């Protein structure tokens, strides 16, 4: 993916009454070009052969297949040292408020013809170490980045950027636009005032560890040791990273269910694991027992399950979990269970696989505060595992972040002791929101798949005639003014997700209604 930048006269608004300084402004996203041709001569300028056109509403459309020719700046470009499909190294004007300050960068310049005139856009490919010739640098840059092949800018950031640009209603990113409950916020404020601002114990503030244990007992009936079996982390994201890095050796086989949350693949590649994927298919995204049986073998180290499941909203049934459990016991496989949405279980009962017979000793159960209490930015998560597994993930945790934010941990221990009424109200609220969204999506013409848990709904967008999910999401942003997430990014093989997009309903009701209205009005079936 390439992000295109344009120089603006004044900066974008970044808050009430605040404008950022005039800068390079991201304004378009395109595919990477299939090829690049070097310019015929250093002084020749070529126009890009993009199909870039400006719609009547002054919004840029996105090329579905970009083919670009290299352009070079008129006089400053140097001849490439070796034949290469890549562009010239050029010098950007280093102005006081330009984005790029290192002299040697690799960029593409494109000139866009619009009904109102022309605009010049730049896309930066790589920032090179500014000494010597560029070509060896390119090579070493890619060596550094080898681990990072899976770590490109996330789709969420890209879509959010577009949403802001077009004033679209964001039903893509999975965090609420309403805030957490007052009693939890007050607990955090009190902790800060009480001076609880220094390092907490690495595995968690004892109060929080016991609150987690109590909650887990309520949910599963299991008794666990707060000192030896609970580790507090900076969000469930870190619990996942610590589990992978602490318990997976390079070359280990790990099974994932697609579609999957994007950090699973990334952290597994950090741990150098071999990933095997079992795809969950619409309409009910059930686990195929045959596929499962053929995937699990004596070589399997771990299976990662996420229930309730992001993005499909599926909840693993008891039968499915029992299948998985028996295969794990038979083949001596670990299970990593990501259960962040366990309190958003609507149509079915949430079952923790750790509670099944023979499973606790081989399971890491991960959860967090953020989704249940609408405080996603606090980064309080935890991993529950038997002592021998906890030891491994604690090692990784202590070197990833060392310890977790202290005042928030104190507040979390208050939150987790919330009475059942809190959870019932939470469910009621979300069910109301879900009803608005689901009914709206159906009325607008989507094929809506039933979602039993989480605050996500998966739909099939093919009635609207777009070729794939990314195209559809772009169309949805530009023409309808609503953001959804294309789900092909959640699959190892993107083809499998191209008919599906994900909406979220963790927004206040007014926002949901407005989004639904826009879709009903402006979406046209083809």
């Amino acid at each position, binding site marked *: 993916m390439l992000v295109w930048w344009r120089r603006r006269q004044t900066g974008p608004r970044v808050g009430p009454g605040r404008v950022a300084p005039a*800068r390079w402004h991201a304004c378009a996203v395109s595919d990477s070009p299939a090829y690049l041709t070097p310019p015929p001569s250093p002084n020749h300028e070529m126009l890009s052969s993009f199909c870039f056109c400006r719609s009547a509403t002054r919004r840029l459309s996105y090329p579905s297949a970009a083919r670009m020719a290299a352009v070079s700046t008129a006089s400053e470009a140097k001849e490439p040292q070796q034949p290469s499909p890549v562009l010239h190294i050029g010098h950007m004007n280093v102005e006081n408020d330009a984005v*790029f300050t*290192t002299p040697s960068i690799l960029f593409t310049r494109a000139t866009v013809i619009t009904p109102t005139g022309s605009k010049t856009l730049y896309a930066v490919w*790589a*920032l090179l*170490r*500014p000494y010597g010739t560029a070509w060896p640098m390119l090579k070493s840059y890619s060596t*550094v980045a080898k681990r*990072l092949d899976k*770590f*490109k*800018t*996330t789709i969420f950031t890209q879509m959010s950027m577009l949403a802001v640009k077009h004033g679209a209603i964001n039903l893509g990113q999975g*965090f609420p636009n309403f805030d*957490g409950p007052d009693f939890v*916020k007050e607990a955090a*404020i009190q902790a*800060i005032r009480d*001076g609880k*601002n*220094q390092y907490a114990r*690495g595995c968690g503030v004892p109060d929080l560890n016991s609150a987690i244990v109590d909650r887990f007992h309520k949910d599963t009936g299991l008794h666990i040791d707060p000192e*030896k079996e609970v580790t507090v982390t*900076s*969000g469930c*994201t*870190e619990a996942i*990273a610590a589990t992978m*890095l602490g*318990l*997976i*050796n*390079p070359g280990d086989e790990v099974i994932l269910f697609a579609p999957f949350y994007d*950090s699973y693949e990334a*952290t597994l590649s950090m*741990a*150098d694991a071999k990933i095997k994927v079992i795809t969950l298919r619409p309409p009910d995204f059930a686990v195929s027992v045959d596929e499962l049986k053929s995937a699990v073998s004596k070589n399997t*180290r771990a299976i990662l399950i996420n229930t309730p499941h992001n993005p499909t909203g599926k909840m693993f049934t008891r039968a499915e979990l029992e299948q998985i459990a028996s295969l794990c016991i038979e083949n001596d496989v*670990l299970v990593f269970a990501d259960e962040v949405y366990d309190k958003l279980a609507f149509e079915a009962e949430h079952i923790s696989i750790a509670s099944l017979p023979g499973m606790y000793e*081989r399971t890491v159960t991960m959860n967090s505060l953020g989704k249940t209490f609408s405080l*996603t*930015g*606090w*980064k309080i998560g935890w991993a529950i595992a*038997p*002592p*021998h*597994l906890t*030891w*491994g*993930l604690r090692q*990784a945790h*202590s*070197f*990833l*972040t*060392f*310890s977790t*934010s*202290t005042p928030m941990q104190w507040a979390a221990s208050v939150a987790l002791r919330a009475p059942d009424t809190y959870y019932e109200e939470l469910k009621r609220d979300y069910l109301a929101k879900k009803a608005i969204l689901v009914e709206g999506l159906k009325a607008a013409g989507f094929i809506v798949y039933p979602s039993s848990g989480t605050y996500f709904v998966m739909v099939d967008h093919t009635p609207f005639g777009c070729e794939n999910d990314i195209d559809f999401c772009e169309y949805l942003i530009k023409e309808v003014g609503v953001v959804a997430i294309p789900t092909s990014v959640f699959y190892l093989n993107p083809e499998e997700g191209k008919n599906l997009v994900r909406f979220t309903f963790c927004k206040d009701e007014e926002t949901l209604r407005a989004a639904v209205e826009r879709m009903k009005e402006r979406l046209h079936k083809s």
Partner: protein
Amino acid sequence: MSRAIPSGPGQAANAQARLKAPAIDKMEAKLSKASRALNASPIQEISHLAQRCGAINLAEGFPDFPAPPQVKHAAVAAIAADLNQYRHVQGICDLLAVKMKQNHVLDFDPLTDFVICCGQSEAFAATILATIDQGDEVLIFDPAYETYESCIILAGGIPLELRISQVYVPLDPPYWTLNVDKFMRSFTGRTKAVVLNRSLNEEKIGCIKETNYNSYSPHNPTGKVFSKEELEVIAAACCQMDCLAITDEVYEYITFDTHKHLSIASLPMMKERTIITSSLSKTFSVTGWRIGWACAPTAIASAIRNIHIKITDSAPAPFQEAALAALQSPPEYFSSLKADYVARRDFLIKMLSEVGFQVHNKPQGSVFIFAELPKTCLLCDVSELSPATFPFIDFVKELIEKAGVAAVPGRGFFHGDCNDLTQQSRYVRFAFCKSNDTLSAADQKMRSCVGK
């Protein structure tokens, strides 16, 4: 739990642990080799003992006095103002860019060159994961903060037998000077980076000069800072060998006397190959907030950011807002921070010297004093030293149980036989980032137990 007892942190012990790695039971065999080689932190063990005995804790390096009120207010206001969802507060990067310019005359782009992480710990971990591949060597100066090694092992992708090796360049006591020869000889074709620890000891190149050397970032545990000459040597080596420099500058505002914190990135040709990591924790006495950052040339910063997003996704949101207030503190805040720490340092040095410890060098930075045991102390019986025992934890234990003061055995900061083991086992680390009341109480207790 069988692995609860830490094996000695010396290299011999580590090597033994790595080779044996006994699988106590089948499940334990499921741990990754990396995690099995990493040992539990001795500092945390000591803190637990100290807590149990009600001892005064001069072991862990975090303050027992409150954080500055305006910073706490900002955090409280942020929570109340509903700034509690995932966010990236660009303003922090803007302020950091200004500070970089002011303090080091370095130009960084706030939009692309900073990554806000959960503490300097995460910034360092993400940097290592972003730049170190299997087989890369990383030079670390010895004595060093215990986390560096483990981070690098983690990134080495395991197994440990070969792959990533971190090479310790010993600093010579008693002044912890950089021996240029030893340093240059540690470079190999596979050296990818040099880690410049929190604070280091200076060695004047050649002869000993006591006069005003510009200091480098204060070092944990010895409190020494690299002189400009030493930094230039390191910088030249990095440029020549085409290596990265990763710096940990958490104590950047806690430097004393005439020493001013000098970042290696400000030396010629170093900006493009240096990654600076730092945090709010020590400067604003908020070690539990987990707000830190990495500052690097754009391409590397981008790589670090991508890793960070997959490890934690975002630093705690309300504290990012509070960081804005903190980073806008007036210069008086920083000067009084320094003055307070100088007073505490001097107090503790006086106390230790009068009790019989040998403080060879006054720390020029950080919040620790690395002192040698009193000559009369017979607890350090080195002849019975074996990798599994930990003689200096005995001394420290005595100190906790009898004198009621907790400190950290210095041996844990050394690695391997690059330093004389006898030497290594004679050092203890004390922290002085404690309130005046605490330090006075410690003073009383120590004096009453002299000659134990």
